[in-house]
């Protein structure tokens, strides 16, 4: 019974076998469609052989549609709108630039490069567009795709802080006798999100003469110190001292959540969202003005730690 069934199956397969009409897409010689019956043979020309783009150039599938600046609360996001469309143009990446970085392509793009509120150019990527012609890929334009964000910044807070009220220092000295920046919990502080201090040195600070031609007496100068904080935790750094008048943040990796300068006793509210590289710590720079007219820079080394499961 089994043997006839197998024979019958083989017979059915053999009788219904037909040659397959397949097309090998990897075959080197192109296949041209013959001219249709209505087209004279003389007018018909085969389709040109597809040209493989050079390395680095790719077919554009998302077309630039405009720059977009979206503000959500204190965060302003700079993005680029695109439309999914295949127009037959090609593009390649010229350069990716970071926030504030200059590029040789600045000014070359047809859409320009926007700036943050502090004047630094936004981060993004420059692309060069190409059109495929008979002579090959011809560059036609440069476009900048912006991709950046910033926290709202109150520029009015950046200049030097006003002199401290004369009544502030005695109370602070009595309350915190320590001559060091003191961190306090921030549960009771509802400081608005108003600033971000870049970890780079401001041009204004770089142009000023040395801050401390004569260091203040050791008894009154706040020493550098190190702190450990949890990532993302909001803390206040309080600068106290009998002779301290004002403070100003120069550079920090953290995200400022309050004024960037203030009088002695006014907290610097900040949080750190990024961990420093292994075995290193962030350094925050401050400028302190003392009552005797001297100015001195203070460094705070910040070690950011993140909770996690351990063995």
């Amino acid at each position, binding site marked *: 019974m089994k043997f006839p069934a197998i024979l019958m199956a083989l017979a059915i397969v053999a009788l219904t076998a037909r040659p397959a009409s397949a097309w090998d897409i990897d075959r080197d010689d192109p296949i041209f469609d013959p001219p249709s019956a209505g087209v004279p043979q003389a007018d018909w020309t085969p389709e040109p052989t597809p040209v493989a783009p050079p390395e680095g150039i790719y077919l554009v599938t998302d077309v630039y549609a405009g720059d977009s600046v979206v503000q959500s609360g204190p965060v302003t996001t700079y993005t680029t709108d695109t439309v999914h469309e295949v127009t037959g143009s090609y593009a390649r990446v010229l350069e990716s630039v970071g926030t504030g970085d200059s590029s040789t392509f600045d000014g070359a793009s047809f859409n320009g490069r926007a700036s943050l509120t502090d004047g630094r150019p936004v981060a993004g990527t420059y692309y060069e567009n190409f059109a495929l012609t008979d002579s090959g890929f011809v560059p036609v334009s440069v476009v900048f795709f912006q991709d950046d964000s910033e926290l709202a910044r109150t520029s009015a807070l950046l200049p030097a802080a006003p002199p401290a009220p004369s009544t502030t220092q005695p109370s602070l000295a009595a309350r915190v006798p320590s001559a060091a920046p*003191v*961190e*306090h*919990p921030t549960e009771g502080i509802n400081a608005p999100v108003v600033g971000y201090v870049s970890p780079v040195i401001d041009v204004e600070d770089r142009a000023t003469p040395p801050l401390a031609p004569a260091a203040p007496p050791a008894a009154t100068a706040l020493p550098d*110190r*190190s*702190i*450990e*904080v*949890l990532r993302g*935790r909001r*803390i206040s750094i309080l600068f106290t001292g009998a002779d301290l008048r004002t403070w100003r943040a120069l550079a920090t990796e953290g995200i400022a959540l309050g004024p960037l300068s203030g009088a002695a006793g006014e907290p610097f509210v900040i949080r750190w969202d990024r961990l420093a590289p292994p075995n290193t710590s962030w350094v925050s720079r401050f400028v302190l003005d003392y009552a005797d007219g001297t100015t001195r820079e203070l460094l705070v080394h910040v*070690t950011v*730690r*993140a*909770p*996690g*499961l*351990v*063995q």
Partner: protein
Amino acid sequence: MTAVTTIAMLPVLTVVLTTTLQLGSLRVVAARISSAADLAALVAVNDQDDGELARSGRLVPAADAVDVARSVFAQNLEPIAELLAATPDEIASTASVRVDVTPATVHITAVVPVRTPLFGALFFHPISEIAVVANGGAR
């Protein structure tokens, strides 16, 4: 012959199937208990002693880290409370919670009784205990 074999093997198959199901359920419950302890340790270590931060700048867990760990552990056990042989509060209160200052670490060790009715029917073992250890630290 086939019928006889089936009848003879049916109790064995039943025991094997029941044990498999109960073990699978136990593994799921154990995973959820472990997650509850892990999250409790993380939450407990995710707070800083502000007084110590002001004094020395060091990262030291908050003084109520032990209470926070027990509370969060109990809250995380609530969704599976009906599978447990004790209340989440009882389990959390009997758990061992230790806080290391340097480096800031929270250790949770607990023994959680879990209802295993199928084991009870088969092996007279209606409650199985699952030991869980979770360590959370700020690194």
